């Protein structure tokens, strides 16, 4: 019977972008059990509904996370609009979808850089973040902010994009597609990367479904769970197929994210071709009275906002369940049997965004 020792991983660790603590129980360098602890960046943002009206709360909903901020605000205003029965203009739906897909591009490139850096592959890190600068420049030129866009509001969006700017954005993306292809080829076909990732941290399909895995963590194991298929925003008018891989190991999850980069560019191209003219916002009066579950697909998976109002200007409850929060039980399961030196790489493949998870 070998001796078991407990090694703490985190909250301060060079590969982790945000603090997460795992107590790893080891037998001779192999992990047999994991106890997770979060709560290092708990800000209690949901309590602020008592102090801010529902129209001002968009800015707080945006700041739940820095990387996936636009889609949080989109989910929130979508929920409020469903409760109040508002039909926002078509152009606003398309603009929100375009900005949402830009956010997904920037998040996946950020993840790719961090992941490569966690493995020691610095040149992919620098190239990925250099490409990400082009995306952030486009976001800044159209909305005014690089990461926290501040452009969603109840009833539509606050800014419009001219058709010339849309064409310029499309040309920029097409030119970038060639470099993205090079980058993902280098990363996915590299010998050391394949050796390190294939067969590691396998999450089986039934386990993924039972434990509540979402996003690329689930799609890498063969489950086609992608909330964009339900048709929120402009997705009911666009051809879209979720990207699914069957193996369930770390390599499959990385391949899902790499292929989603190209799916996002395709979605943006379809939106820009189909976007109608018209207003981008509508007048909103009154207050929400009712409850609703609003779901969208963030870069890391399915996010669900529960909004409850009772007719006053302040909401009763706003509850956010982010994808990383529900990906923690699958993480605990798939770390069993992994060697200690591989733990950082495996933790990074689920793309932890602990700031989201704890709000």
């Amino acid at each position, binding site marked *: 019977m070998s001796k078991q020792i407990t090694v703490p991983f985190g909250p301060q660790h060079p590969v982790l972008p945000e603090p997460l603590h795992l107590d790893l129980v080891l037998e001779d360098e192999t992990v047999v059990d994991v106890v997770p602890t979060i709560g290092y960046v708990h800000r209690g943002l949901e309590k602020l509904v008592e102090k801010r009206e529902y129209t001002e709360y968009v800015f707080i909903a945006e700041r739940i996370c820095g990387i996936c901020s636009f889609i949080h605000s989109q989910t929130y205003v979508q929920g409020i609009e469903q409760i109040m029965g508002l039909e926002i203009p078509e152009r606003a739906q398309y603009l929100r979808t375009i900005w949402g897909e830009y956010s997904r591009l920037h998040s996946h490139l950020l993840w790719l850089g961090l992941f490569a850096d966690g493995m020691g592959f610095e040149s992919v890190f620098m190239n990925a973040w250099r490409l990400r600068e082009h995306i952030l420049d486009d976001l800044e030129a159209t909305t005014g902010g690089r990461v926290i866009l501040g452009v969603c509001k109840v009833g539509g969006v606050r800014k419009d994009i001219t058709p010339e700017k849309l064409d310029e954005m499309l040309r920029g993306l097409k030119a970038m597609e060639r470099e993205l292809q090079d980058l993902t080829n280098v990363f996915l076909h590299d010998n050391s990367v394949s050796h390190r990732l294939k067969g590691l941290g396998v999450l089986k399909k039934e386990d993924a479904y039972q*434990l509540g895995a979402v996003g690329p963590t689930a799609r890498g194991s063969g489950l086609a769970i992608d909330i964009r298929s339900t048709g929120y925003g402009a997705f009911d008018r666009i051809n879209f197929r979720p990207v699914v891989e069957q193996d369930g190991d770390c390599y499959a999850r990385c391949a899902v994210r790499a292929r989603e980069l190209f799916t996002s560019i395709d979605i943006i191209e379809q939106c820009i071709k189909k976007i109608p003219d018209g207003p981008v916002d509508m007048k909103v009066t009154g207050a929400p009275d009712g409850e609703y*579950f609003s779901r969208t697909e963030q870069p890391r998976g399915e996010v669900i906002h529960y909004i409850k109002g009772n007719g006053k200007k302040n909401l*009763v409850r706003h509850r956010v369940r982010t994808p990383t929060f*529900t990906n923690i039980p699958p993480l605990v399961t798939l770390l069993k049997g992994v060697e200690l030196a591989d733990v950082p790489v495996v933790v990074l493949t689920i793309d932890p965004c602990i700031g989201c998870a704890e709000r």
Partner: protein
Amino acid sequence: MMAAQTITQIAVGEVVAKAEQAQRDGYRLVQIGCTKIGDDFEIIYVYDKDFVLLNYRITVKQDTVVPSISGAYFGAFVYENEIHDLYGITVSGINIDFKGTFYRTAIKHPFSVTITKEGDA
């Protein structure tokens, strides 16, 4: 645009039975959320299959003991520990029970008190 959503009210004793029924029918657990309305707490269990939501709601008081569904769904422990730490509702029988140390906050059970507006945020 979206389908209408219904929330079914059930009793505290039926929580585990409904969870096991949902698991047999092939639903996955989406979230367990808690809301404070006046002196009561509402806990909503949300399940999903093929993008159709199935919601159950129970209404409890501060000292009600709620049974855990982590026998049917292993991943429920994160939600149930969070409800205990933020609202102070006891959940019995969680498979990984942090006993109040999941979130360490300066005020215990912060969401169960309503802070009145004193000046700036």
